[in-house]
């Protein structure tokens, strides 16, 4: 067993290392402020999506991205929602991603809630359920990046479009904010951003993916409930999940939208 002095030394050494790292980060960060963004060097940041830094064209080629949410892992901490809100400064009351809490009682009643979109995490259990609780789980929600997206179909000006690499994105300079896409999305992931007065939604962090980085929510998830990767890379985790015998499903399959967002352990109660 380590005595107290040794432990203290260890902590001090960690602390010094930590302060050094913070200082380095601050200096690097300050430099980033003065160096134009285009010249940003990601050499120091490890590539999280293999092969992405080799992509030079306007569109990603030879990749087919998928997002996998593992319901059996999610603990409802809300880190993903916080990361998302920080990444995009989403105005309050609108949600690019959110986490739902499902509770099923022994009368098979299903109780779902998502206070503040799960942004504050689920720190307290629900005490208002009238019957004994049989089961409970969390379901993170985000853009389904449909292969046949109804939002793209209905957009009258082509502001919502699908990239060749399968991302569904919004051109903020074209959107007229008619709201048709909001009505057409079966998953309610869209909203009209009150700041920009245009349609807005989760992009799977396209700007990060283009630089070989994982979406912000995937990056912060402490239990790896959110996974992102290239299905053409047979070594990727998402490929293995979708091609090995797992219980994998998508939301509202009868809508015919063919989501690229898959759920591991999806329950029939989830809509």
């Amino acid at each position, binding site marked *: 067993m380590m005595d107290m002095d040794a432990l203290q030394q260890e902590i001090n050494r960690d602390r010094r290392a930590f302060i050094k790292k913070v200082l380095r980060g601050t200096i690097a960060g300050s430099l980033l402020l003065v160096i134009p963004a285009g010249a940003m060097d990601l050499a120091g940041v490890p590539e999280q999506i293999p092969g992405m830094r080799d992509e030079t064209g306007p569109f990603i080629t030879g990749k087919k991205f998928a997002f996998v949410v593992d319901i059996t892992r999610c603990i409802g901490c809300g880190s993903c929602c916080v990361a998302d809100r920080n990444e995009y400064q989403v105005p309050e*009351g*609108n*949600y690019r991603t*959110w986490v*739902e809490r499902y509770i099923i*009682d022994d*009368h098979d*009643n*299903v*109780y*779902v*809630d*998502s206070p503040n*979109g799960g942004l504050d995490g689920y720190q307290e259990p629900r005490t*208002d*359920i*009238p*019957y004994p609780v049989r089961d409970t789980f969390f379901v993170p*929600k985000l853009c389904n990046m449909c292969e046949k997206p*109804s939002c*793209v*179909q*209905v*957009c*009258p*000006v*082509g502001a919502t479009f699908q990239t060749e690499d399968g991302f569904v994105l919004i051109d903020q300079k*074209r*959107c*007229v*904010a*008619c*709201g*048709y896409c*909001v*009505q*057409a*999305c*079966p*998953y*309610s*992931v*869209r*909203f*009209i951003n009150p700041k920009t*007065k*245009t349609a807005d939604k989760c992009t799977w962090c396209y700007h990060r993916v283009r630089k070989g980085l994982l979406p912000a929510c995937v990056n912060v998830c402490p239990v790896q409930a959110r996974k992102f990767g290239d299905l053409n890379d047979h070594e990727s985790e998402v490929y293995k999940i979708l091609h090995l015998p797992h219980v994998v499903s998508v939301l509202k399959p009868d*809508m*015919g939208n063919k989501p690229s967002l898959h759920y591991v352990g999806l329950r029939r109660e989830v*809509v």
Partner: protein
Amino acid sequence: MSPEHGAAVAEALTRYIFPNDLHVHWSLMIVLYPYITGIVAGAFIVSSLYHVFHIRALKPISRYSLIFALAFLACATMPLLNHLGHPERALNMMLTPSPTSAMAGFGYIYSAYGIVLLMEILFIYRPTLVALKEKAGGFMRGLYTILTMGSDNLSPRALALDRKVIAFLAGIGIPMACTLHGYVGFIFGGVKANPLWATPLMPVIFLLSACVSGIAGIILSYVLIRKFTGKPVDMECIRTCIKFLWGFFILDFVFEMLELFSHAYMATHHWHTLRELLWGPLFGSYWIAQVGIFSVIPFFMLGWLSLVRLRDTTVRFWGSVASFMILVQVLLMRWNVVIGGQLMSKSERGATYYHPGWFEKEGIIPSIIIMIMPLIILYILSRIFPLWQTDEAAAGEETLG
């Protein structure tokens, strides 16, 4: 906890709506939009009953209904522009349309229909406008010169050509008016994510209710304008209109109920959501107001007015009341479809609420202003285009339409 109490608590607690579904995006403005375009299409149908189908009794209102349609057509885009987050980009829908969008066609259909309507008015009114031009001076003379397209030729040969053009325009006007409003129904009917909207019957119901609202609008405004200007009401015309109103309303109401009945009978998982909506937040505005008061009562009133031989004053008064009720019914129908459809969360577990404010951008006061605008435009148009043929007859002019 008693079992009943437990069940009640559980029932109340199992409701959940998606966080982005709390806000109703299509406001009162989008209720008014199909309402106004419906009145446009319906009024045009009234005119066509005379011009194409030669229902002689409707001659006194055949011109008026076109001007009435134009006045409302001029305001059809107002609620849309007020609704858009970026109205300055509205024309992009026509400049860079997305071909797959059900909405992208609106600009084209609306403009094409507007051109046909305007051309028909100009041709029908041409002899009148030529005569008015002779009498007018200054600005009005210039205006009439433009409106007559610079042609003063009233020879029998020219008028015969005009008649051919009018018949052609009225002929293509009918499918275009039907397209305009059937298409507005399709904008809603094509949204598969919304179980209240997604039905192939939606364009049919929208079209029939459009006919109904147009005819009712014509009856009510005709009686009121004639009354306030101290002119007699052509009773044969009103009786014929009431019969058409009743006929179209039978179809409209039956289809509305059939649509609901089909949903209930098929009882897919959507019906569960629809039932909660119609017997929940929409109970008052749908069952009590739209169906109970403003459909069933005018339905019997119109039947009574159509089938029983009544005194002129009775027909005039109760016909106007029934028309007013029908106008309210169609507005309620638009509300229940547009707002009602959005109240259901796509979580299929609950409904949100919507109460428009009086003074908000898309609230009640702007809606009232937008609904008054067509009447102001109608007044201005009536200064340019005499609404009634009798006015012209008094002035000793030749009439075409």
